[in-house]
């Protein structure tokens, strides 16, 4: 019971986090590619409750930012004017969950811009970029993990169940794949592609390539589970009664691999998110101006950004809760699987 509650807890947090990312358009006040050329590298807006006269406001407000005279990356607050933070305001157009055209945003301000997490070198809202970037990175993780598991499961099951020469060939092949330097492979692959690749194409490229390259490890795991499962007494008995391969696989062997697959999925998703980030960081991923977590971190390659604007590190922090939840879920799943095995 405790184990199940633990599982539910991790799952709930993870679903909530993904929910926020999925509704990026609603949570973020602005479009992630909209530039505000008056405010490059604006620091995170400070929300105030207490004004200059010492009055307490229930609703938070902020002061507009003004560039310091002669300096182009330092700001000061104009305290003459207060701007109230408003909730559920109309703003830029977006599509909720990629489907429903919408204009409602969780919060926003009138005739100024609010940067809860600061802005980047083009005056683009970091919060919006992190949320929208999450959509790209997480989707890449999910799809990549999906492809890998599909391939790994299929190949592993065939190798494990049928054995013999099929097993030999597939497993040697798997070893070959494990030995591939996939980063260089991607570099090479990128060189073969046409010069300008649309964001969608490069996204699919990342997903498909990283997904197909990673099948070997799950395949080996699935194979070992299938190998042991097919020798178990009830499977032998079923075979003795004349059950077909198809029936055996579906009824007895695949269920044995389900917990393994779930655990693998929770481990693989963050891995593939990380793969996308690595590629985007190196400039091989989705191109500007589309945001992805790797692109956002790519800004940190510049020494001046590293030294001057601390809020540019925030995308790195955002990843932490996601990865923590995935790994927490993975270990909870494992415990739960082990426990139910003992019980069963």
């Amino acid at each position, binding site marked *: 019971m405790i184990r199940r509650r633990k599982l539910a807890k991790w799952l709930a947090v993870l679903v909530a986090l993904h929910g926020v990312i999925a509704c990026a358009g609603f949570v973020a006040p602005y479009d992630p590619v909209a530039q505000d050329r008056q405010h490059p590298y604006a620091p995170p807006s400070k929300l105030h409750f207490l004004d200059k006269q010492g009055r307490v406001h229930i609703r938070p407000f902020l002061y507009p930012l003004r560039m310091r005279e002669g300096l182009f990356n330092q700001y000061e607050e104009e305290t003459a004017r207060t701007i109230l933070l408003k909730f559920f305001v109309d703003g830029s157009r977006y599509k909720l969950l990629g489907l429903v055209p919408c204009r409602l945003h969780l919060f926003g301000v009138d005739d100024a811009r609010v940067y809860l997490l600061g802005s980047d*070198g*083009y005056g683009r809202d970091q919060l919006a970029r992190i949320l929208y970037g999450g959509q790209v990175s997480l989707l890449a993780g999910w799809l990549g993990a999906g492809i890998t598991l599909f391939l790994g499961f299929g190949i592993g099951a065939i190798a494990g169940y049928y054995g013999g020469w099929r097993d030999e060939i597939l497993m040697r092949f798997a070893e070959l794949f494990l030995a591939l330097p996939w980063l260089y492979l991607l570099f090479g692959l990128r060189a073969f592609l046409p010069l300008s690749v649309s964001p969608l194409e490069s996204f699919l490229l990342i997903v498909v390539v990283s997904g197909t390259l990673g099948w070997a490890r799950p395949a080996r795991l699935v194979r070992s589970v299938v190998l042991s499962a097919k020798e178990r007494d009830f499977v032998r008995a079923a075979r003795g009664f004349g059950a077909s391969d198809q029936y055996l696989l579906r009824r007895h062997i695949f269920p044995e691999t389900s917990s393994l697959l779930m655990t693998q999925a929770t481990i693989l998703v963050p891995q593939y998110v990380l793969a996308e980030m690595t590629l985007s960081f190196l400039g091989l991923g989705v191109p500007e101006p589309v945001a992805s977590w790797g692109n956002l971190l790519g800004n940190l390659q510049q020494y001046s950004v590293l030294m001057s604007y601390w809020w540019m590190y925030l995308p790195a922090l955002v990843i932490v809760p996601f990865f923590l939840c995935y790994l927490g879920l993975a270990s909870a799943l494992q415990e739960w699987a082990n426990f139910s095995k003992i019980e069963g």
Partner: protein
Amino acid sequence: MTNLRPRSCGCSKLLGLLFVLAVIVASVAVALAQQTHSNEELLALSGEAGSSGGRMVVSLRAEPKTLNPVVATDAPSQEVIGTMQADLVHINRATHLTEPALAKSWKVSSDGLDYTLTLRQGLRFSDGEPLDAEDVLFTLRVYLDEGVHAPQRDLLIVGGKPITVTKINAQTLVFHFAKPYGVGERVFDGLAILPRHLLEKTYQEGKLGQIGSLSTPANQWAGLGPFRLKEYVAGQRLILERNPYYWKTDTQGHRLPYLNELVFLFVPSADAQVLRFQSGETDVISRLGAENFSVLARQQRGYTMADAGPGLEYNFLFFNLNDLGDKTAPETARKQKWFRDVQFRQAVSAAVDREAIVRLVYQGRGAALWGPVTPGNRRWIDAAIPHPARSLDKARQLLRDAGFRWTNEAQGEPALVDAEGKPVEFSILTSSSNADRTKMATLIQDDLKQLGMRVQVVPLEFRSLIDRVTQSKEYDACVLGLVSFDADPNSDINVWLSSGGTHLWNPSQEHPATPWEAEMDRLMVAQLTATNSEQRKKLYDRVQEILAENQPMIFLASPDILVGAKNTIGNFHPAVLEPYVLWNVDQLYLRSGAENAGR
């Protein structure tokens, strides 16, 4: 009195004797050397007198390809060669005026066709071999040889004919021009005088282009500059040492240069250069981006940062206007139809937010550009060129006049389509190693999005970018920058002549492709031979106006020259002409007590 004589043994006595002998031999040698050099005519430089010794460390963005001035085209090579070679007449980087160098004086004939140059007495190459008029004759022969492909060759052809040189005596030479030459004695700047005794044999074998690699043994390479080759460590550094035969002194008669060693470290990225400078590993830094400059300026510790004002670099966007005939891919041909339309280019220019580029890319440390001549070049800039403010309305009007229209896509964002209904989409190449230009391209991308154009920014490794632009010509548009090596318009002649290799939008044409390119050719050639500088200015102004009208390059912005040096470096006077910091390397010195002298 007690005897204070120290205890001594025979061995130390012997050493003492040897030492005394050595001192005597050395002083005799010095005296002899001074005697042989007594007839030297050294050039005394004004300015603060420094102290000798020490080494200065400079970082280079890339390893120089060659030490051979005859074939060097890349900036790192030119920077290193600049410290190892010397020219007959030199352009002072601070005053932008010419001054005597290897030639102590020159006379121009009344018709402007003959330049009589008198060489200094007693000049020696860095290996001690004397220089005479024969070396100069040899040098000119090499530069003018078509088989050598020297980049300087174009500048030495006046009125379609190469310059001829005649030797009057060992010290005097007459240079004859077929037509009066507008640049005058500036032509001699950058023409490194070559050591005939080392190179003649190789030249006759036709292999001159292949020598001068960095691994050349130090005793087989010589020049007339302040430094000479000492050691090269592949992939890491190049060490130059003081040329003891250098021909300049300071006000007190000390022979320059002051520094014993000049070390070039190969540091591939701008950020790594900043880190090396900040940690004190390098003594000076130049070619700084505005953002790194502000980082360094904010935490100044033992170094001084300087903004020398707008330099001669101009950044621009240009479209692929090459005519590849049948080889053109249909996709490219379709796009080139837009690019060739002057109204299309004008519309793009009107939509570009130059002020934002200066603000966001250069943090205000730069100037917006509407022509190739930057505000840093006050003498040659054409003040009459209009500086229209950014106007999307004007851009839309121009596009409408050119037959483009907008369709409402499903998303509600209007998309620009050409007369045939095809959407206007293209990509802009930028150099992936240059964050500034990538940022410019990203800003332009957003500017053009507001006109309904769909633009992709493609950062490419610099060499493959240049290859695409000048060789394979497979690209749509590109953001690049050029740096004039001199304030004079002649330094960019290769960019404006339609036959020039740097005529980037359509390089090396056999015949000018358009009437306005033909007119630019005519004007550039005319200014080359006009002696009157006002007339030259008028001709070059017209070139700038043609560029502004036709927008083959959409000029964007020019960065300030941002440099820094340790406080221990004396005579640090950055210039806006290249090399920004090392132009007076012979006068740079380490202030006494400099802790890095023995490093």
